[in-house]
C-alpha cells in the first residue's frame, strides 16, 4: 500500500475513533451515590420547575399528525384512534404497536439515543419512566388545563403514587399519565371447582388441599409462569403486603430492611408454593403467556395468578371456548391468609399502562390533545367496550352492552382499586435482585433468608448506603 493510501486509511480511522470517543464521553450516566443523587435532584428540580411553567404551546389542535408508540393492544387502540380522528378530521394519529419485550424496549432505547422519539410513548411507572425522564415533558400543567386544577382527584391514590415513582428528591413533576389500572388476584374456574366440590380457599392449608384435589383429578392446580419474572413478582408482592401492608414500599424507600420478618415469611411461603404442589410441576420452565392463559381459558387449569386485565379474555377474537363468553365460568379471589393473624389479600395493583409526552411532542398541539382524549375522552371511551383492563380515571364508566358477569367482576375490581398497594418498583436493580431471589428460592438454590439478604444488599447499593 502506498504511503498516500496508508495516510488516508489512518486519517479515516482516527476520525472514526474521535467521533466515537465524543459519543462515548457524552453518554448519560446514572448517579450511583447519595451525593451525586442529591446534586442531580437539585438540578432536576430546578430544570423541572422551569419546564413546568405553562404548556409550551397554547395553539389549538386543528390539523397535524400525532405519532404514538406502545405495546397496547392494537385492535383496541385502533378503535380509540378512529374515534379521535372522526372527531378531529384534520388530525392523523399514527400508532405503532410493538411487542413489549424486547421489541418495544429496544426501539425506545434506539429512538431516545437518536432523538427520534415519537410524540407520545407508552410507559410503565417506575424504572421505565425514569429511564426516559430527560426526554419527557412534565405533563401536570397540560393535565390541569384539560381536566381542571383538581385533576389528581380523578385518579386512585396508588396511581398517583406510581406516577412519580423514582423521581429524584425535589422533582415533583409528573412525567406520565395513566391510561389503565389493574388489581392483582387469583382467577379460578368455577366449573372445575363445582365439579370437585371445592370451595374458595381462605387459608394456605385450604389452598394446598384444593391443589391436591385438582392434581388427583389431572387438573393443573395453579398455573404459574415462573420462567418469566412478572408473575413471580406479583405473587410475592401480594404475599408480603398481606403480612405487613406497605412493607415493599417501605423497604424500597429505605424505611425498613429487606430482612424484615414479613418479607422473609412471604419468601418462605413463595418457596412452599412449589414444594407443596400448589404450582404446577415444572413451573420454573413455564410462561404465563401465551401458554398459561390458553390452558386456563380452555379449562385445563384450576387457578392462575393473573389480574384484572384477564377481563379482556371475554372479548378476544373467536374461536374461544364457550366458558369464556362473558367469563361465566370464572371468578377471582384474593390470596388466602398465609400467616396467623393475616386476612386474605393484599389488594395490590396500580397503573397497568400509561403514556408520556416526549419533548418532541410538546411542540405539537395535537399530541396532548390526543393523549387527553385517549385517557379521559372520546377516544378512550370508544375502546372501553373491549374491557382491556380497569380505567385509570375513576369516573370512567363501562359502556352498555358488556355482559353481566364481566360487569360484575369489573365492578368488584373497581371497588378494590382505591385501596390497592403499589405493585411497581422504584429501581430496576432492586427489581432484578428480587427476580433472582424468587427464582433462586423456587429452584431450591437459596433459602428465604439468603435470598432476602441478597436483595437487601442490592437495595443498600441503590440507596447509596
Amino acid at each position, binding site marked *: 500500500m502506498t504511503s498516500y493510501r496508508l495516510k488516508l486509511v489512518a486519517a479515516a480511522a482516527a476520525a472514526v475513533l474521535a467521533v466515537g470517543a465524543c459519543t462515548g464521553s457524552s453518554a448519560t450516566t446514572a448517579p450511583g451515590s447519595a451525593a451525586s443523587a442529591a446534586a442531580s435532584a437539585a438540578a432536576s428540580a430546578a430544570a423541572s420547575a422551569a419546564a413546568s411553567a405553562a404548556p409550551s404551546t397554547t395553539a389549538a389542535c386543528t390539523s397535524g399528525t400525532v405519532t404514538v408508540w406502545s405495546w397496547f393492544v392494537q385492535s383496541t387502540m385502533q378503535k380509540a384512534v378512529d374515534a379521535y380522528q372522526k372527531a378531529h378530521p384534520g388530525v392523523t394519529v399514527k400508532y405503532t404497536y410493538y411487542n413489549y419485550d424486547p421489541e418495544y424496549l429496544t426501539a425506545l432505547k434506539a429512538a431516545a439515543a437518536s432523538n427520534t422519539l415519537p410524540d407520545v410513548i407508552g410507559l410503565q411507572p417506575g424504572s421505565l419512566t425514569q429511564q426516559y425522564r430527560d426526554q419527557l415533558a412534565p405533563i401536570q400543567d397540560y393535565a390541569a388545563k384539560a381536566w381542571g386544577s383538581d385533576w389528581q382527584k380523578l385518579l386512585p391514590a396508588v396511581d398517583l403514587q406510581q406516577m412519580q415513582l423514582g423521581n429524584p428528591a425535589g422533582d415533583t413533576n409528573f412525567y406520565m399519565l395513566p391510561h389503565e389500572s389493574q388489581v392483582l388476584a387469583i382467577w379460578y374456574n368455577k366449573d372445575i371447582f363445582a365439579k370437585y366440590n371445592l370451595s374458595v380457599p381462605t387459608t394456605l392449608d385450604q389452598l394446598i388441599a384444593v391443589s391436591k384435589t385438582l392434581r388427583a383429578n389431572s387438573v393443573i392446580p395453579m398455573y404459574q409462569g415462573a*420462567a418469566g419474572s412478572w408473575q413471580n413478582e406479583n405473587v410475592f408482592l401480594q404475599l408480603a403486603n398481606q403480612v405487613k401492608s406497605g412493607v415493599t414500599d417501605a423497604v424500597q424507600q429505605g424505611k425498613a430492611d429487606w430482612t424484615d420478618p414479613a418479607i422473609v415469611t412471604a419468601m418462605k411461603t413463595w418457596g412452599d408454593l412449589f414444594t407443596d404442589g400448589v404450582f404446577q410441576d415444572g413451573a420454573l420452565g413455564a410462561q404465563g403467556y401465551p401458554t398459561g392463559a390458553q390452558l386456563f381459558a380452555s379449562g385445563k387449569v384450576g387457578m392462575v395468578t393473573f389480574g384484572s386485565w384477564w377481563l379482556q379474555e371475554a372479548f378476544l377474537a373467536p374461536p374461544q371456548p364457550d366458558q369464556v363468553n362473558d367469563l361465566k365460568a370464572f371468578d377471582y379471589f384474593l390470596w388466602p391468609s398465609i400467616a396467623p393473624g393475616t386476612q386474605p389479600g393484599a389488594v395490590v395493583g396500580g397503573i397497568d399502562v400509561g403514556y408520556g409526552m416526549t419533548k418532541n411532542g410538546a411542540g405539537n398541539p395535537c399530541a396532548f390533545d390526543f393523549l387527553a382524549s385517549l385517557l379521559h375522552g372520546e377516544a378512550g371511551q370508544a375502546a372501553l367496550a373491549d374491557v382491556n383492563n380497569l380505567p385509570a380515571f375513576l369516573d370512567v364508566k363501562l359502556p352498555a352492552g358488556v355482559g353481566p358477569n364481566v360487569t360484575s367482576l369489573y365492578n368488584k375490581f373497581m371497588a378494590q382499586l382505591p385501596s390497592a398497594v403499589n405493585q411497581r418498583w422504584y429501581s430496576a436493580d432492586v427489581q432484578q435482585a428480587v427476580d433472582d431471589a424468587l427464582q433462586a428460592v423456587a429452584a431450591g438454590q437459596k433459602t428465604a433468608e439468603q435470598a432476602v439478604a441478597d436483595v437487601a444488599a442490592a437495595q443498600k447499593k441503590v440507596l447509596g448506603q
Partner: protein
Amino acid sequence: MSSMTKVASLARPARRPPEPRLLGRRRTHYLYILPTTLLFVAFVLYPIVSVVAMSFFSKDSASAGTGPLANYQAVLTDPIFSTAVVNMAIWAVLTITIQMVVGGSLAYLIETHTRRTKAVLRTAFLIPMVTSVSVVAIVWQQFYAPMYGPLENLLKSIGVSMQGISLLGQPSTAIYAVIAVNIWMYTGFSMLLYIVGLHRISSEILDAAKADGATGLRLARHILIPMLAPTTKSLLLLGIIGTLQTFALVFLMTNGGPNHASDVFGTQIFRSAFRLNHMGYASALSSITLAIAFALTLLQLRVLHTGLSPTGGGNA
C-alpha cells in the same frame, strides 16, 4: 540544437504528466467501493467504535468505580459472567461437534444411499433452520412441559418417568435443553455444507478407494473425513462465531434462567442495556465478546489455515 541533442531528445520518451496525488490512477476503482465502505463505516465500524468508547467512558450503578476500566472490572468480577462463559463453552463444544457428526452422517447417507427421496430428505432436514425462532421456542417449550408435554408422554410410553421435572426449569439442565433445540434447528446447515463438500470430491478418488476395498468406516476415516477437512474447518469457524452470537433461542425459551443458569453473553448484554440501563456494563461485555470473537477467528485462521469459503474452499 545539435544533431546529437536532437537524436537524444527524440530517443527519450516524453515525460508523462504527473499522476494525480490522491489515490493514483485507481481513483475510479475506489469510487466503486465507496458506497459499501460508507455503509460499513456507518452501520458497522462506527457502532463498534461507539460501543467500545462507551465501555470506557459511560458509568452507571453497575460500574466498579470511576476509572476507565471500571466497567470491565464489573463484568469480569460478576458471577453471572462466569456462568455465561461456561455455558457458552458447553454450547460451542456440544453444538459444533454434534452438528458436524450428525450433519455429516446425514449428508453421506442421503447423497449415497438415496435417489428418489433425496430432495425430500434434504428439504426435510433443512426446514428447522428456516423456521422462525419464535415458533421453534414456543413449540419446544410445549414439548418439554412436564405435565402435558409430548416428551413426557413419549418417555412414559417407554417406561421412563420425568417425575414432574421440567428440563427448562431446572438450573442444572436448562442450558442443555436449549442446546438440544439448537442442535435440532441447525444440523441441517452442517448437512448442507457437507453435501456441497461431498460433491467436490472427485468420483475417481472414491471409485479408486472402493476398488481398494475401502468402505464404510474405512472410507470415511481415510478418504471422506480428510477430504472434507476444509468444510469441517469452516463449520468450526462459523460455529464459534454463531455461539458468541447466541441470543434469540435462549431469550425466548428461558430468558437466561432459571436464576441466570442458562445465561449467555447475548442475554446478559440485553438485560444490562435494555432492562437495567447499565449501558457501560453492557458495552464492556459487548467489547469483550468482540475481542473473543476476533481472537478465536485469528487463531483458527492461523492454526487451522482455514479458508473463509462456506463451501470449504480456500487453503486446506
